[in-house]
């Protein structure tokens, strides 16, 4: 028969494998991620380094597309009984993941079961707070984190005679008008509109987005960001949008080229924009902390993170879990974190790594990389600035963006838009609570 030689070969191979390696087969662990370009290289290097450091486990990274694609692929794979061991999920997918009890394995439980040394206190609280329960138990392992900063084109600022980058919102509004006089298409702009103007804005001013510590303490959270403070920000932006002193650049970061091309001199977006600016900006630039309203007591508070964390999926073998726990210990290593921070521009996740980077004098040459860290650690996080956790957050961001767009286009007042964003969002939260409660 045709398949007999193959069967014989297989049998020999199996016998050989057992005969030559007393340690048994290598356990493979799938790691699905969304990193592209240089950051994809970092993922591959981490996996290779880990695989070379021991012989029992093999981490196999697989690129699955955008963050949303990874989440959807993971969900589909889980439904088909085929989930990967580790899945990289963006911060707004956190509620979806943690609600799926049985589909996931919390990181704190994993580390405890496997007896790996693990002290949640050694991680930066502004980062782990986002991924922990109200009791402080870490559910997922922070991987790549960034925060929002204001990118400044120093050359363009000189034209209308602005001496220093703006620190407060009133200064931003004033500078945007001055910049508009020298450049009619754009003074100030931004990416990730809801992350910046609702999520970060609330944390930075120590005001809540929703009840129950922005949803971190329970799915029965109710949105409440339609306040006079939020309205004031949006009203000002609407006013500036009329003559393009502020010019909207879309919901995601597709408009970031408007900063590097020199069109928009002030641009709020992620600190992870750094490698792109470094490669493409042909002018003197810097990044400064997000602006705040000086009349708000306690502002600025601290910023929150964006980025992604690694989730461990449920229903895997004990061997796989052992390997994943080892891999997480490997990732937490101080020198490795320092290295990751310096090559990728993402933030270090442990206090030791941050301190070591400071001590090495790295920030003297790269002050921009310290700006988001200073924002995150500006003050001890409060209920309003630990992070946020709302179900259906991906879709909710779209809804909020829609309403902000309606206000900027002059179809609704700022207050009406925020009211609608809150009520539509609450409807989605109730729907989510219903499916998640069981």
């Amino acid at each position: 028969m045709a398949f007999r030689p193959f069967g014989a070969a297989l049998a020999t191979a199996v016998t050989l494998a057992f005969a030559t390696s007393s340690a048994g087969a290598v356990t493979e662990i799938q790691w699905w991620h969304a990193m592209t370009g240089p950051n994809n290289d970092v993922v591959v290097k981490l996996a290779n380094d880990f695989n070379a450091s021991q012989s029992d486990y093999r981490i196999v990274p697989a690129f699955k597309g955008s963050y949303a694609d990874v989440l959807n692929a993971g969900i589909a794979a889980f439904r088909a009984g085929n989930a990967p061991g580790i899945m990289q999920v963006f911060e707004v997918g956190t509620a979806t993941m943690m609600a799926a009890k049985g589909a996931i394995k919390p990181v704190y439980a994993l580390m405890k079961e496997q007896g790996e040394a693990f002290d949640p206190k050694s991680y930066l609280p502004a980062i782990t707070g986002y991924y922990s329960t109200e009791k402080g138990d870490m559910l997922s392992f922070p991987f790549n984190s960034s925060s929002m900063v204001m990118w400044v084109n120093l050359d363009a600022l000189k034209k209308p005679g602005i001496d220093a980058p703006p620190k407060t919102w009133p200064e931003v509004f004033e500078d945007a008008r001055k910049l508009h006089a020298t450049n009619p298409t754009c003074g100030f702009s931004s990416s990730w509109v809801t992350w910046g103007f609702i999520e970060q804005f609330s944390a930075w001013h120590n005001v809540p987005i929703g009840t129950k510590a922005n949803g971190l303490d329970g799915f029965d959270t109710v949105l409440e960001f339609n306040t006079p403070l939020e309205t004031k920000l949006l009203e000002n932006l609407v006013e500036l949008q009329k003559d393009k002193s502020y010019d909207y650049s879309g919901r995601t970061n597709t408009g970031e080229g408007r900063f590097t091309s020199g069109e928009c001199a002030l641009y709020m977006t992620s600190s992870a924009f750094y490698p792109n600016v470094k490669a493409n900006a042909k002018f003197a630039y810097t990044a400064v902390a997000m602006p705040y309203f000086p009349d708000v007591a306690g502002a600025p508070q601290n910023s929150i993170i964006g980025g992604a964390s690694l989730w461990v999926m449920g229903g895997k073998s004990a061997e796989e879990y052992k390997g994943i726990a080892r891999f997480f210990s490997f990732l937490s290593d101080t020198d490795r974190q320092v290295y990751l921070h310096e090559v990728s521009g993402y933030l270090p996740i442990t206090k030791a790594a941050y301190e070591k980077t400071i001590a090495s004098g790295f920030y003297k040459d790269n002050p921009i990389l310290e700006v988001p860290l200073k924002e995150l650690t500006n003050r001890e996080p409060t209920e309003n600035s630990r992070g946020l956790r709302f179900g259906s957050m991906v879709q909710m961001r779209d809804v909020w963006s829609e309403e902000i767009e309606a206000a900027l286009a002059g179809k609704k007042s700022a207050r009406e838009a925020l009211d609608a964003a809150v009520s539509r969002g609450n409807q989605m939260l109730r729907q989510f609570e219903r499916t998640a409660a069981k």
Partner: protein
Amino acid sequence: MENRAIFSGKTLAYLLVLPQLAISLIFFYWPAAQALWQSFLVQDAFGLSTEFVWFENYVELLKTPEYYHAIGVSFAFSALVVFFSMTLGLLLAVMANQNIPGVQIYRTFLIIPYAVAPAVASAVFIFMFQPGLGMIARALQRSGIDWNPVLNGTHAMILVVIVAVWNQISYNFLFFLAGLQSIPKSVIEAAAIDGARPMRRFWTIVFPLLSPTTFFLIVINITYAFFNTLGIIDTATGGGPNGATATLVYKVFLDGKGGSDLGGSAAQSVILMIIVVVLTAIQFRYVEKKVHY
């Protein structure tokens, strides 16, 4: 007199249509039934908890004003896409159906856009129309038009219509050209001898004789505009700004994939299915009567 094959029994006939039936069942009816079933459920993303809720997803859906807005957007978008892609396709086909030098080259080039994937076409167009970066956007801004599809709903709609039309013209062109070539030359020549000018010849002879092609293309183009433009809208505008380009099918995609609201999304797709079935039925019932085969 009928010229029909006679089978001794029905078994062979059933056996012969079986593959087609199997394909229809597996790829059309089974998923449609799944969608129908899913639309009665409330379920979390991972499928860990499921609740049967009868028509609640539909009731919730019909309570949201955004859904009615999406219906309006869908019909406006489809009407624009069908009208422009068909008229332009017909115009180009008539032009390319003449005896002019290099006509084969024109024809080939006119068909090429159909080979471009919608998402790719969309990406290219976004780049050209990106305010501040794209060539066309800059030209528009220089001529005093405040082109801004990220905030202006009308501009966003124009952008997606242009991409969708551009993508579909080749298909319509191809069918119209084939239709034109099947019209007997003698009829047109006879009319010309009787003194009918080209415009009159077109409207009284060519256009009526093209009606089977036109009818077929209307059905196909409506289906295209309703369903196959998802990739274009996703890449070009993401349904924005403020839902101005969120068609029904895009909302199904957005709520199901991004929102993990499978029940609500399934309810939407069932309604969408009904709309398209009704539209097609109307066409076959009433419009087809005007078609000359």
